[in-house]
């Protein structure tokens, strides 16, 4: 990699101060499994001058549940710890399932939940290595020009919600959090703010500013009897980012679906809550015909590009799988 200055901070305030001082020319490093890849491939038009290591900040690696019905997870909690957490396994196994599908064992030993949510997109135009003829320019890299994926090979790109950029959100945790009403707390020089997980992502990047740091991830603790599932379609198991994924949280009353929360991953720049599908499910018995109807409703608004229409079928299959009793 090209060189950079390296700072190790001991508090959130120290981190924010450094990030602010560098005015967008610095990057946070937690687990490093995304950042180092980005730096090595030299895909960003501006290489950071400094890297700020937040791993020594105490108190950001807790998993706690409170009487307020929320689960609180520190951004430095490793994916491995999420998988092994007795609390999460008991109360929120969907999160552990999602974490287990991420990458590989070695990566999960260092990758953090904060990093997973904030990681950069995987669009292969965006990630094209600079050393092999030059990186691709696109709107995300603050240059002009149409998204090269639109007329190119867009088999892994978005089938809905694309605007200017057609990359998909790569975070499996974000998809899981989307049915758990996940909230991200950010702290910057101006103080703290909270963002709902799906509002965290825009077509051109996350809303996190260059001088902000995630301090907490909060999610609803599902009710005891709720059925939780996370399904991820990939060409290989595990390793791959989701081609399509579906998280669902279904509460039943007898044989009837009382409430359903369904989120799609791999289809858009953010996890998509399939609200029409949820509506279809509420008050009905989850039989084959119903789940098929829900799946259709979920993908009604899909606008595939030239090479990714197959995602629609796969998404429907995963939705049916997650909703069928």
């Amino acid at each position, binding site marked *: 990699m*090209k*060189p950079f200055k390296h700072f190790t901070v001991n508090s959130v305030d120290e981190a924010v101060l450094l990030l602010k001082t560098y005015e967008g020319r610095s990057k946070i490093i937690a687990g490093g499994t995304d950042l180092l*890849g980005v730096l090595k*491939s030299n895909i960003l038009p501006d290489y950071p001058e400094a890297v700020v290591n937040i791993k020594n900040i105490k108190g950001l690696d807790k998993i706690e549940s409170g009487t307020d019905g929320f689960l609180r997870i520190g951004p430095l909690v490793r994916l491995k710890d999420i998988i092994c957490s007795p609390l999460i396994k008991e109360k929120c196994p969907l999160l552990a399932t999602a974490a287990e599908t991420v990458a590989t064992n070695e990566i999960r030993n260092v990758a953090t939940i904060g990093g997973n949510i904030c990681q950069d997109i*995987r669009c*292969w*135009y965006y*990630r*094209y*290595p600079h*050393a*092999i*003829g*030059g990186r*691709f320019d696109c709107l995300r890299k603050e240059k002009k020009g149409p998204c*090269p994926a639109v*007329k*190119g*090979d867009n*088999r892994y790109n978005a089938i809905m919600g694309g605007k200017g950029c057609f990359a998909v959100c790569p975070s499996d945790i974000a998809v899981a959090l989307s049915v758990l009403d996940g909230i991200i707390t950010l702290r910057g020089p101006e103080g703290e703010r909270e963002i709902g997980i799906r509002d965290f992502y825009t077509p051109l990047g996350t809303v996190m500013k260059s001088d902000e740091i995630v301090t907490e991830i909060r999610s609803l603790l599902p009710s005891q009897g709720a059925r939780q599932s996370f399904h991820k*379609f990939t*060409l*290989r*198991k*595990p*390793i*791959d*980012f989701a*081609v399509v994924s579906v998280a669902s949280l279904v509460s039943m009353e007898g044989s009837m679906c009382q409430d359903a929360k369904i989120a799609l991953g791999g289809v858009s720049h953010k996890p998509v809550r399939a609200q029409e599908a949820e509506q279809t499910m509420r008050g009905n018995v989850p039989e084959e015909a119903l789940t098929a109807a829900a799946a259709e409703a979920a993908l009604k608004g899909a606008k595939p590009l*030239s*090479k*990714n*229409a*197959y995602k*629609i*079928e*796969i998404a*429907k*299959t995963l939705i049916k799988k997650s909703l069928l009793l």
Partner: protein
Amino acid sequence: MTNNYRYIGKKIPRKDAKEIVTGKAAFFDDIKMPDMLIGKTLRSPYPHANIQSIDTRNAENLPGVKAVLTYKNIPPWTVGIPPHIPVLDRRLRYVGDAVALVAAETREIAEAAIELIEVEYEPLEAVYDLDEAIKPEAPQLYDFAPQNMVPDALPLGVEGFEDAPLHHIKIGNVEKGFQEADIICQGTCSYDGIPNPLPPEPPGIIVKWEGPEEAIVWSATQSPSWANILTSMFLNFTEIRSIATYCGGSYGSKNMLFNISLHAAALAKATNRPVKIYYTKAEHLNAFVLRPASRIHGKIGMKKDGTLTAIQGDWLMGYGANAPMGFMQLAVGCGEAQLALRCKNWDFKAKCVLTNRTPSGIVRGFGGQELKSSLMPILSIAMREADIDPLEFFKKNYVKDGDGYYWRDSKWHVCEGMDYRKAMEKGGEAFGWKEKWKGWLKPTTEKGTKKTGVGVSLHGNADVGEDRSEAYVRLMPSGEAVVQILVAEAGMGQRDSLCKMVAEVLQIPLEKVKMTPPDSLVNPVESGLVGSRGTYACGTAVIAAAQDARKQLLEKAAEKFNTAAENMDTADGMVFQKDKPEQAMPWFFITGPFQSFTGFGRFNTDFTKPNFMMIFTEVEVDVETGKIEILKVLAATDAGQIINPLALKGQIRGSLGSAGIDTAIMEESVIDPQNGHIMTSNMIDYKWRTFAELPEFDDVILESQFPTHQFKAIGLGEISTAPTPAAVLMAVSNAVGKQFFDYPLTPDKILRALGKIQGAESK
């Protein structure tokens, strides 16, 4: 038949096993050399362009930079037969093509210098598709290749290459053959996903000049002799000493180090210091050897009983932007077609086509994988019309003892001593073929959204006996035997197998057999570990050398024992009379302290012993998602005699690697035709099989004792991948109920074939 061997066929750990598992085996990047510079390459952003201007001053002025080369200041060396690849060119022919070279003190400085080179390009129109490239109006890549087809290679007039290599199978009269046929079919099939063999270790070269026309080349390679003979040829016959390190996988590709060698050699000459070029993984994925792209437009004539009456076709082999050795793979592929399909009438033309993408080169399967994958689906049309079981078809039509074929040397050879029908039958039995085969385009089972199907294909190569090998075996006073043969270790375990053969001939402990390092200075000539020739060709040479040395020892010993040499024997470093083994004497007493017995052995080309591998496979297709799972693979073969069971097992399972079976379902280098870039430029986007998903893998290995050498063995490693894509395509076609004609069969293709995706895919 069981032989009472001490080492042959026994499960004995590899001699260098300890080095491997302790991390002591030195691979290419583990070598350190004082004074060594690092070379890096500036790569073209365009698939086709001329350099209009290039300014290297800022790069040259960066502290630590020792040389910057462009097409303006390179030595006049050219790679290729015919020569067409200069060290650097003003014309660039693929995204990633070398624009300039830098040598610097460290990797970081070299990379920084690359970024300081300023270039203006004149983009040109590019072409990617094989059929488009050979049209008269297509953009031309080279002057020497009209319509982007490399002219058919000329006879070289040297030993082994007297005639032009085979590129057109012309036998009998195809028109007459079609008249005799009950069934005639036509089709086009493409195997053009240009997957990457992608060894774990990227390619690299170190070049050090020892004099104006003398250099040392270090490389991780499976054939060190290709550096000191072939690279030497491209370097105006510079005297090259070639040293091979441990090689972290090659699968053919690291025999194609010519271009990188010339880059390193040019930088080393310019700086007068050793220069190392070691590719990054991105360069390995995007700027190094891919499989050739293959497309066949074929027409088949067949009788109802499966007898082939005519095979006519055009075989386009796409090599990308250049083809230093393309003609070889075409030639071998053409030969291998005849091995698999006995037919009296052929008119089958092979063409080496160039397009604007990263060059292809030799990869395991050597043209045969490309040919089988493209031809078998077309044959399937005829087989289906005849409603003939493909296993029966292959049994009927695979070459056997007495059958003739043109091999790659354009000469007619007759198969000697091989008949693989029993292996096919045993394989079919073990796989349960008869129960699982339900007919063409019919699934084996259907359960919910999952359908299974079975497929079979095969491959064989007469190159097991290609080219020459030479070896010495020296019997030392210490009781050791030193084997001198230029053989590298790239995963085949051949160095170990050859030592075992020598240990067997001499009946000495395996620890007493040593092999010289793979250094061309201290070994005789050897063509290299290619085409499974190691077991037969190298084996013959070392066995003959060991037998020769043994003969000399026993003749000398006979004098001491005052008897005839036929009465003498040796074992465990002792000599004795056969009928008085208790009166034994160590070698030392025969040699004395300052004498050794050196035996010489040579193998001469023998194209009459084709090997064979049949692959049966069962797949499951999810008709809702298009996902294919390979459930089961069974390899059926005949090794003649297993030399090294652990190594052989590894080589056979290698069919799942080296861009083999998974090229049927997910492996491909994806090119964006808008701009010619390879999008699969990292190891997450380039798909490869993980430990988590392993199909059930069985093998049936017969040992029919072939008439090859003392141990009656034949090599197999190279051919294990070649049958796999066609076998999987057949299985998927049967599961889905539709014949496919291209690869890889990704979910979108399956869903489209099932009618689940509306509208045409926009290109």
